[in-house]
Structure formats: C-alpha cells, structure tokens
C-alpha cells in the first residue's frame, strides 16, 4: 500500500534535470499528489513553458512512481500556479551554495527594469549586493546573468516569476 507521505518522500529524491542540487519537490513543481489504492496521480506544473526539462521531469516522475509500486499518472498543469516563491527554503539554500542566486520574492506588480537594476540582488559567492544586471537572459529561460563588483564574479540569478 502506497501512502501519500511515501510518494512525497520518493519524489523528493528526484533531482531537477538542469540543476541537480535541488529536488523537484524543493523546486515546488509538484502541485499535488493523490493516492487512490495503487493509483497515484501527480500534478506537475512547469517552471517556464520554454523549459526543455519538462519532458525529462515527466519521465523521471513516472519512473519513480512505478519504482515505489504505484500505477502512475502524471498530469501537466500549465496555469499560473507555479511561482519562484514556491521554491522551498532548503532549496534556496542549496541553490546559493551551488552558485545560483535564488529568486527575489514575487512583487505585487510585474518586475521592472528599475527593480532589476536595484541593489537587492546578492552575490551567491561573497554575499555583496554590489551587483549589476549584465543580461536579462542567460543559459536557460529561468536565469539572468549578473556581475558582482565586489568579488568580480559573474553569476546566474534566478528570475522571479
């Protein structure tokens, strides 16, 4: 008999395909787990729609659910329910330790250039806020590139959505 707790624990072992230091549960993309006997339905919500890791996540979830003895159903929900605010405190810590600056909290309105150019973004290497935006875009849709003037290190900053 599979329990919801066991499913959550198992899913917490699945690393994010692009940033394997954090799990899909820590990333906040698992919206819901429903257990009905052997059948387990998991709702997955994409981070960015342009993220090519979505299919890898679906596959990893299906395999993991099968491995714990469940009949898996993975539903992708493309609505506004995922936000970078859903990344857990433990996930944020791991991101920073791996050199990725965690996202700023979602503000009431849309992000502005003034906000991106403000001194609120902290370098994940030295902790300084003397950082500047180099490029809104980076190696994946979810990240920007910033430069730390204190330790002279470029770093990747998670975009807030």
């Amino acid at each position, binding site marked *: 008999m599979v329990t919801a707790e066991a499913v959550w624990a198992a899913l917490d072992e699945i690393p994010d395909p692009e940033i394997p230091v954090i799990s899909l549960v820590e990333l906040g993309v698992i919206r819901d787990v429903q257990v009905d006997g052997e059948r387990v339905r998991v709702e997955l919500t*994409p981070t*960015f*729609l*342009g*993220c*090519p890791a979505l299919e890898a996540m679906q596959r990893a979830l299906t395999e993991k659910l099968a491995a714990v003895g469940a009949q898996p159903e993975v539903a992708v929900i*493309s*609505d*506004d329910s*995922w936000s970078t605010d859903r990344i857990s405190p433990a996930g944020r810590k791991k991101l920073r330790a791996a050199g990725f600056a965690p996202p700023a909290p979602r503000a009431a309105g*849309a*992000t*502005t*250039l003034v906000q*991106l150019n403000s001194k609120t973004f902290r370098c994940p290497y030295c902790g300084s806020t003397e950082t500047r935006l*180099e*490029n*809104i*875009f*980076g*190696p*994946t*849709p979810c990240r920007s*590139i910033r430069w730390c003037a204190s330790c002279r290190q470029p770093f990747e900053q998670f*975009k807030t*959505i």
Partner: protein
Amino acid sequence: MSARAQRVLELADDELILDWRDSERTGIAPTLEEDVAFSSIAQNEIGHARALYELAAGELGTDADALAFDREPGEYRCAQLVELHLMDWAHTIARRYLYEEADRVRVEALKRSDDAELSGLAAKIDREETYHRLHAEMWAARLHDEPRFRAAVEELWPYALGVLDPELRPELARRVGLSVESTQAVERGEHRPELAELWSEMTEVRRSAPGQQW
C-alpha cells in the same frame, strides 16, 4: 473549427513563426549579450507555442507537432508582422517592441476570459513575457531618438495593428503613441511570400521522415 481553436491557433502561430525569426539571430546578433537574449526569447516563445498548440490539439483531435509542422503554409493563421524577414537591427528591434506591446494587450484580454484553461495559460504566458517586454522596452528607450528606429516603427505599424482584433487596437495605439485612424492595418489571412520560404526550412526535417519520433 471553433472560434476558440482559431483564436488559440492565431496566437500559437504568431509565437512559433516569431520564434523562428528571432532564432535567426542566434550566432549573428550584433553583440554576444543579444545573441543570448534572442536565443532565450526564441526558446521561451516555442514553449508558449507548444502549450497553445496542445490546448488547440485537444479540441481538434490532433497533436502539437502536427499543428506546428504538418499544415500547409496557407493554413497558418499568423499575422504578417511575424513573417517579415528583417535582418537590420532597427527593424528587428522595432518588430520586437511592437509585437510585445500588441501581445501584452492581447494576453491581458485573454486573462479575463471565462475559459479557465485559456485564462490560466494566458496568465502563465503573461508572467514569462514580462522579461521579453523588459528587453524590448530597454531597446526602445535606448534607440528612441535614433531616426532609423523611428522610421522602422512607423513602417511596421500597419503590420502591428494586424496582430490584434480591431477592438483592441486603440489600446495598442495609446501604448506606443501612434494612431489607428490614419493607418490601414495589414490584416491576418493573407501571407507574405517569406512565410512559404520559412515553412520549407522549418518543416524540412519532419517532411524528410514522415511519422518519425524524435
């Protein structure tokens, strides 16, 4: 085809074709930063196109790849703004700016839709588009006093109007400071010869191996 499916396909086709045009900058943008920016924007637009095609495909009994690649060029519903093959920087930025402004007006309207699937997806797209808009705004501000940029915006204005239904056009005009009254919009429906060329390149691999799974 329902009005809903047609509406979703218009949006999906705009995103897919503009994605293709934006990705033409990959490797040859004027600066490395813009190379990264255009490539990333293009990648995200393809994600929007895919989610929209999947929404339409459920209703039409097909799949996203078939909608994206198996139709004839004449069956696409994209606006001519996204079809134009523009390789000079002033026009490239003018199109990005005008498209993002038009898309903002359209997506805002879709977010208010009674259709929960459509309004939910529009809200998700809207959040991600924020970053495309910031990029366009930054360039529009930087090039504001550049005569070549102003001329490109005016030249593309009739095409930008054609992205939107007539009732949404005054809002776009207000946002970019141009006029609806004195301009004949380039409406959807007719396609430019460039679309067939783009389609031929875009679908070449898929046509070469029909039914193949990638």
